[in-house]
């Protein structure tokens, strides 16, 4: 099954490009560390998923590029073509000249309806190119105007046009000390709207990735390109082919569906966080060895203690003892910093994955009580190493990972809303105070739900 990627706005297009780059470079690499047959299987599965091979020389990414100003898309298209390994379909792009001015209302209420037909036609064309459509993956930032506003509108249109397809929104959480002054408004409006049409939101926080680049990757003068490459690596580690069942004979053909099934049992809980281990500069890889027990131990503690990366993990945080049974709505027996999960997915790639002991992730004390721990936790594996890492593990978690960031964003937006600052910029394009209130209410509900886990 194939995934159609919709790249929205400057952020969406810049990241999308790095994602396809990372995927392509992975399948062309010679560090698969597995049999030739395995490697070919992996490559074929990956190509079917992300690329279309028409009569052209290089694979064409299954993607639609959308932006309200032309510069970023032109750059993205030309950089891809220059790689020589893959490219975009030149016709799968839509741009305008004006930009959205960081205004969610402009993206959602003006650009959206105005360009709906053209954009959806492009999506339809890409969908038709797939033998079997596995769903949509949209990439956008919450802070600006196009990715956020137009992105929310397009997601709604995708839901209307493809009611039975899976939609996964990849959302970039901006730096908390501001890239855009109205980013908290844009974020609140985006999240509340996406929640209605999307199946799940997979979140990357700029602050977190920035720290990873600075501390783990040792990058001194960090550019957005560096940040985007780390994000792309993390996404690749989730979406490259895997076996979803023990002893499976084929690479899974329905990655988005599988993801939703394992991680989103209830529509009130759609916020997914992503962690990846190990993460280090390429030139250090040769000198490092990893053991699965070590990696798993770290990953589990990252989950429990809500650590953003493998350095600075708080090892004091432990799950509560299961003996003391208070109903889970009273979280008083849970240590304050403990991160409660609804469901977790661990993805293992590389050497000896078949023998890894994941029992620690099945510990019922990690989870809420609704799901049988056997259902709350899943593992996908492949012996094929990813992107030169001999062993790597990714964790996609539906847990309280994003509770604090969400609460922060809503808090700041509410504070600004109370003073009515900038509201005139939104009402100018048709988003009224009541719309803001609806969004706030929806998100307070989500916060409340995740808090009482």
């Amino acid at each position, binding site marked *: 099954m194939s995934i159609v990627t919709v790249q929205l706005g*400057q952020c969406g297009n*810049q990241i999308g490009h790095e994602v396809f780059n990372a995927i392509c470079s992975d399948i062309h690499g010679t560090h698969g560390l597995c049999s030739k047959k395995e490697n070919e299987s992996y490559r074929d599965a990956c190509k079917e998923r992300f690329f279309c091979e028409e009569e052209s020389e290089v694979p064409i990414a299954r993607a639609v590029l959308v932006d309200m*100003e*032309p*510069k*970023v898309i032109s*750059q993205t298209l030309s950089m891809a073509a220059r790689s020589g390994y893959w490219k975009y379909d030149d016709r799968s792009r839509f741009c*305008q*000249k*004006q*930009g*959205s*001015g*960081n*205004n969610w209302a402009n993206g959602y209420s003006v650009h959206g309806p105005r360009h709906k037909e053209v954009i959806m036609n492009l999506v339809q064309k890409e969908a038709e190119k797939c033998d079997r459509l596995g769903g949509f993956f949209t990439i956008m930032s919450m802070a600006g*105007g196009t990715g956020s506003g137009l992105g929310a509108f397009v997601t709604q249109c995708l839901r209307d046009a493809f009611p039975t397809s899976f939609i996964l929104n990849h959302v970039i959480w901006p*730096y*908390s*000390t*501001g*890239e*855009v*002054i*109205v980013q908290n408004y844009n974020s609140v409006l985006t999240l509340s709207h996406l929640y209605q049409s999307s199946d799940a939101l997979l979140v990357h926080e700029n602050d977190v990735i*920035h720290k990873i*680049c*600075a501390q783990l990757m040792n*990058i*001194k*003068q*960090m*550019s*957005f*390109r560096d*940040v985007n490459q780390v994000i792309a690596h993390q996404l690749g580690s989730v979406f490259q082919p895997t076996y979803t069942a023990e002893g499976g004979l084929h690479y899974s053909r329905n990655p988005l569906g599988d993801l939703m099934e394992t991680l989103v049992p209830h529509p009130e809980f759609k916020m997914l966080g992503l962690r990846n281990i190990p993460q280090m500069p390429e030139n250090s890889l040769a000198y490092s060895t990893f053991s699965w027990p070590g990696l798993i131990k770290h990953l589990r503690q990252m989950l429990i203690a809500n650590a953003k990366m493998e350095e600075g993990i708080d090892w004091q945080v432990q799950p509560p003892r299961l003996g003391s049974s208070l109903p889970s*709505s009273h979280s008083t027996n849970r240590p304050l910093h403990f991160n409660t999960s609804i469901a977790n997915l661990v993805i293992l790639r590389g050497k000896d994955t078949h023998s890894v002991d994941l029992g620690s992730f099945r510990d019922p004390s990690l989870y809420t009580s609704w799901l049988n721990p056997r259902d709350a936790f899943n593992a996908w594996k492949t012996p094929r190493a990813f992107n030169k890492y001999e062993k790597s593990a990714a964790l996609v978690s539906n847990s309280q990972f994003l509770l604090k960031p969400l609460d922060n964003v*809503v*808090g*700041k937006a*509410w*504070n*600004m809303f*109370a*003073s*009515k*600052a*900038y509201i*005139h*910029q939104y009402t100018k394009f048709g988003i009224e105070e009541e719309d803001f209130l609806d969004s*706030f*209410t929806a998100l*307070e*509900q989500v*916060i*409340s739900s995740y808090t*009482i886990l």
Partner: protein
Amino acid sequence: NGIYDEALSSFFRNVDTRGGGDGPGIYKGKICSLKARALLIDMEEGVVNEILQGPLRDVFDSKQLITDVSGSGNNWAVGHKLYGYQYRENIVEKLRKTAEHCDCLQCFFIIHSMGGGTGSGLGTFVLNVLEDEFPEVYRFVTSVYPSGEDDVITSPYNSVLAMKELNEHADCVLPIENESLFDIVNKIHQMISSGKLGSTVKQNSLVTSSAGGARTVQEKPFDAMNNIVANLLLNLTSSARFEGSLNMDLNEISMNLVPFPRLHYLVSSLTPLYTLADVNVPSRRLDQMFSDAFSRDHQLIQADPKHSLYLACALLVRGNVQVSDLRRNIERLKPSLHFVSWNQEGWKTGLCSVPPVGHSHSLLALANNTCVKPTFTELKDRFMKLYKKKAHLHHYLHIDGMEQSCFSEAISSLSDLIEEYNELDATKGGPRTDPSRLQIAA
């Protein structure tokens, strides 16, 4: 030999003049003849004529001029009411023509002074026309405010009358004061002549020079000062013209820096003022650039943003500067700045890859800050000094369409604006405690 590209197309048309006269537009490919997307308006001919005889004569389309002979006599009413009425149709027609040549018109820049008659009066008339005829296009106004020692006696009247128009019809105003420009020019001269530390300054990197552009044999007295403003506009539009990892368009500036419609006055600063000829620029120098942007003597009006209240701040960086440099400096400078309570982290940032000519990097800071208030209160005081004595009032009132109420409404508008800034300074923008959040029934 040059190629006509998107960057050039933002400010110029490319016209095929080989057949003589104004030929069809050429949209891509080599530059044939560049024509500025501009309208030049003056009620006397001296300045415009000089431009048309100078090295830029081919750039300005002779059909895009509106001139008269006698000038406006430093009288806002003459500019606004008399000439406005007389030239309205002509102005609209020429504006339509120039707008038609644009694929996508995003913004008008109005460049004028506040103290005289034409720039102030007719200029604000044009502002009104733009709002009527092109309501969806942003109106950015660069206004030169008169100083206390201005030799035009009626400049307070003209400025206050113009302020009302700016309050009501401009999207964003960048006030400029000659005093500040003058100080910056002096600072640069001192730097060059002192030959400090034996380092030499790269000539074409001066913020006062029209680097890489047409050079006149003799520089006129205001040229250095005007070039600073020119560089301001270049930096402001750089992200719209060139690529970068975090683009910042003009409509984003308006969106992020104007929290309430009337509070749209932005204090600007440009750094660095010059580049030393040393090749290596350690990051300490980079950080110095950020610090300078907030210092009093880099602002283009007499104001000190560091000691007043910020409503919002934008940083547009050009050149070899990355997001980590930006973040590091914001973290470093934040503690010494005062932000309004509902916008504690109110930063808007942009990264453009292409630096200005002669520099490896540069920074434009735009602040919506209560430090503009003194400029306005002083203006009001000077106005009241004249108005109380009814000095020179008759020159205005005898113009058709001018009444006493024009004056009282104008000063009232200015007073209201000053009061809004006072309110912000007093309350720091918000209640003592954070407003309580919505409660959800569990």
